[in-house]
């Protein structure tokens, strides 16, 4: 019996199952009650007065 369970071996990632089956749950997949959204509008002018 080897004491080195992981050394020298290819180890499967535990998180892959949900990614390959479509249950990754990314930020955009989350819906919470009273959820709000933010969007950033950047100025096209450098060093301009607001």
């Amino acid at each position, binding site marked *: 019996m080897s004491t080195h369970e992981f050394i020298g071996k290819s180890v499967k990632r535990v998180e892959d199952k949900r990614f*390959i*089956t479509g249950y990754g749950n990314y930020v955009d997949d989350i819906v919470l009650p009273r959820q709000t959204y933010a969007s950033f509008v950047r100025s096209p002018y450098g060093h301009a007065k607001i």
Partner: protein
Amino acid sequence: MKIQVKVNGVNYTNEVEPRLLLVHYLRDVLRLTGTHIGCDTSSCGACTIHVNEKATKSCTMLAVQADGCEITTIEGLANNEELHPLQESFRECHGLQCGFCTPGMIMTAADLLQQNHDPSEEEIRYALEGNFCRCTGYHNIVKSVQYAAEKMHTAEPIKTEEAVV
């Protein structure tokens, strides 16, 4: 407008805005969030699904255009607990890192393998040209598709032999 679609084997009837994109219908109405929106301009392929068995970018299509169609998303690709060979191979060959592009990659590759059981590396790369991955550099994705093709290929003759006997 009223639409009727079959998604992953389940029939749905919904009232939708004529401007609603199919990807938003799947994600927001049916809450099938495995289909991702990467670019919203049909460039990245993260939203790829099957419409009547054909790989289609669902952000390029209106929900009303899918009326009467049969749709398969990444959530419906596995046969209950049994993963599709492509799902297995992506895991086996480390074909994903962050996993965002993976549903689209797998759906496009599944369509390819339906049409071409033994694609060359060049044919795989050509088929996946509409799918972007920003993590892997594509090498392991191509390997995953080759691995799945091989597995599906070797699985088939056994079935036919059984059928003959």
